């Protein structure tokens, strides 16, 4: 295409409006729905709080105030202090950084793996299916918790990426089985046939037609996985695996806080409250995304 032709094409694009591709339409619909907007705003606020918040506090999460053990919130310590004299505001935000990243990433990775593995084995069947199903079944029977516990020494400082991958690795199998089943029935639909006869390569059919048509399921799954990942991380950390001290996460904080929650509620309720708000925001986003993807949900 020569330059002038390209310019001409550009001009003609103009009178059709901007190319109304799926991505743009979905994004537009997502931000037009109040739930999506609220959820997105709240989650953005949480991120802002987690990463910018610590800058406004005099205390860092490693600091100990030896003049204030287990004190209620005050002007000095906004969320109060722990038994060790650590500032609750500082450690909570530090924990939130870890949990937000671990939770969201683990959920996204596990859902993505589930979608890809399920769709590939359902679409190609045959040997692809047999190999992928074998891996899925193997991971299903492995005791996830035990393996994570054994591997926990590896999750030292800065190794949170490995932790995310391991968490995700044990979350995707059931969803991928569902995706596989749905793909098999979807494959017979005429629009998939149409794309095939058009000459669209199989991998692109999977990403363009199969997975978007399973988006309702996948988004619900991802939303649930966020909570599941945060909770798995919490329970691992509770038992002393997972995030290692001096680093903290929502899990270690809740584990510690639950012991003192009765007589020093600030050690527990701030963390718990933020966890609830995060999960709620993720659910709102999930609902709004599902509606935005589903052309039938508008009316």
């Amino acid at each position, binding site marked *: 295409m020569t330059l002038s032709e390209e310019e001409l094409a550009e001009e003609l694009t103009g009178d059709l409006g901007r190319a109304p591709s799926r991505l743009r339409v979905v994004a537009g619909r997502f931000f037009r729905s109040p739930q999506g907007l609220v959820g997105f705003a709240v989650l953005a606020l949480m991120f802002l709080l987690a990463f910018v918040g610590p800058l406004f506090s005099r205390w860092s999460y490693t600091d100990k105030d030896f003049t204030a053990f287990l004190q209620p919130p005050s002007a000095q310590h906004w969320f109060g202090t722990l038994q060790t004299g650590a500032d609750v505001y500082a450690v909570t935000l530090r924990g939130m950084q870890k949990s937000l990243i671990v939770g969201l990433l683990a959920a996204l990775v596990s859902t993505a793996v589930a979608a890809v593995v399920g769709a590939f084995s359902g679409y190609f069947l045959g040997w692809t299916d047999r190999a992928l199903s074998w891996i899925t079944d193997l991971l299903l029977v492995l005791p996830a918790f035990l393996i994570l516990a054994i591997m926990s020494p590896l999750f030292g400082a800065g190794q949170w990426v490995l932790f995310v991958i391991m968490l995700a690795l044990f979350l995707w199998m059931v969803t991928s089985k569902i995706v596989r089943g749905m793909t098999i029935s979807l494959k017979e639909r005429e629009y998939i*046939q149409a794309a095939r*006869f058009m*000459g669209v390569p199989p991998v692109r059919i999977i990403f363009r037609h199969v997975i978007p048509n399973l988006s309702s399921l996948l988004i619900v799954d991802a939303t649930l996985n966020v909570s599941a990942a945060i909770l798995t991380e919490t329970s691992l950390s509770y038992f002393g695996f997972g995030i290692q001290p001096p680093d903290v996460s929502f899990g270690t904080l809740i584990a510690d806080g639950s012991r003192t929650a009765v007589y020093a509620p600030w050690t527990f309720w701030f963390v718990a409250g933020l966890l609830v708000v995060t999960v709620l925001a993720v659910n709102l986003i999930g609902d709004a995304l599902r509606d935005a993807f589903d052309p039938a949900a508008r009316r």
Partner: protein
Amino acid sequence: MRPAANPVLEVSDLHVSFGDVRAVRGVSYSVSPGEVLGIVGESGSGKSVTSAAVMGLLPPSARVTGSVRLHGKELVGAPERELTRFRGKTVSMVFQDPLSALTPVYRVGDQIAEAVRVHQRVSKENAAVKAVELLELVGIPSPSERALAFPHEFSGGMRQRVMIAMAIANDPDVIICDEPTTALDVTIQAQVLEVLKKAQRETGAAIIMITHDLGVVAGFADRVLVMYAGRPVEVGDVDDIYYRMRMPYTAGLLASIPRVDRGGRQPLVPIAGNPPSPAALPPGCPFAPRCPLKIDACDEAEPPLFDVGVGHRAACIRWEVVRPEAPGRHAALEPVAPAVRGEQTVLEVDGLVKDFPLLKGALFKRRVGTVHAVAGVSFDIRRGETLGLVGESGSGKTTTLTQILELVPPQEGRVVVLGRDTARLDGAERTAVRRDMQVVFQDPMASLDPRMTVYDILAEPLRTHGQRRPARRVGELLALVGLDPAHAARYPQDFSGGQRQRIGIARALALEPRLLVLDEPVSALDVSIQAGVINLLGSLRDRLGLSYLFVAHDLAVVRYIADRVAVMYLGRIAEIGQVDAVYGAPAHPYTQALLSAIPLPDPARERVRERILLEGDLPSPAHPPTGCRFRTRCPKFRSVLTDDERALCVGVEPEVLPVADDQGAACHYAERLDVV
């Protein structure tokens, strides 16, 4: 035939609404014993809701007002217990889908016996005997054995016969048939209609025939009621409706259907626009926005039914000026010049064979048989030509189609697409051929990805074949098929069926293909919409120089659009040739039967037509008969041929041999005959 003094069923001013949606708005009719009333309308016109309201079968959320009187007894608002006494005894019903209307876990005989015992005090044994009698009456061979079979062992046509047997089990006064033959093939439809006529003679019942097929009604009904947007718009004797219609909608409907008895290529007259949604009706006459005769007064108020003749009423303020739009039979048919076939062959299929294994067992699959779906099919398509591939379900036309579209080496035989043999294609060549051969599917909803915008759907083939900026072409394509380019951001579900099919056609045309494979492209559309799509296909072919492989079961549509036609039966081609030759003088007994089975929307001709009825169902493609595949159902084999001649049919499978210039038939005793 005038309605007798005391009608069996009288419906007056029936209204049905679901919430705010008024599905039926003031339907009135009456039927007398022995009378057949046809109710005709497109989908969404309220015809099925009307009959469900008569039977009291609507969900509780529906609000029914008006009056339905059966032998003078009011049914609207009657207690359920009373309605149960009527249902099945005085009024019975035949549904569209015979598979879901029978309980799969009970024997057929028991189900009929149950229908008898619900309303009559007879012993189990007597009911069973009666069931066998009824099965015999509706023409089920060896009824006493078949009564012990389960529904899944019956074919669609046989199941519908069983439904009719159940409907007449208690000698009803009214039989309501809701699209009884829509799900069936033409030859089976002809059989079932014969059975219905016989059932009516036996019981003397009144029949209410609900259908969208104007042909079925023409030969069967005495009176016709045309419904549009929940209201009757024209009522009258069948001849009045077909020859002296006074409502533009009826005239438009009749002008928009392609007819199997009409050659030549005068364009069909589609009705503009789409039927209104019952939730948003226009202020005046509901048909006004689509009406060619519309004047300002039409928008003022909904017209009542005017008396326009004896027993003939039409809801149009301009009824005096309405004239039939359609010319008479062959009126516009100028002598067709013998078509010269193009030079360049775009598709050549030679001796194509495709078998499917029948497997059994869950863990270790073993082969227990072979389904011979396609058993040696040969045809070719030249540039600019349209080949119609017709056949009933199970004839192998879809398998043939997929074999061509897959572009993989065939099991046996040869497929050459645009000069390239599919057996010797590598990856890059296959992609190149795909670019030149595109497909349009039957169901316009299923063939468009519901999660993609129209823009993305149309851009997909362009992007696949390396066009980076598809926006301009997408706009062009939408304009080409008569849609507004500004609608590109919408999803397929925001469009009506006809518009969706246009999007499907636009997608197929995106890459400027040379061969278009059309798989029943109009059979899922309403009559008034269908004509528009057919016209579009015709004009696109002429403008863009396309070749079509047009697969359909509707022979009238094929006659209209195709240059040549191939009739398939049980995996083989029975007859192939130039359209007017095959339709005008079919040589194969199967083609003759197929053509004579199609009902014409022409009451006078329907009454005098002789049908060639085929016996029984299509044999299983797993065990085709020896020799000629058609001989088990062939009327000629049964009654015309001598034993010596039959030996040839049993022993030797006939090849397609020429019987005329461009017409060949696979019959040892082919003989050309006018049957339409």
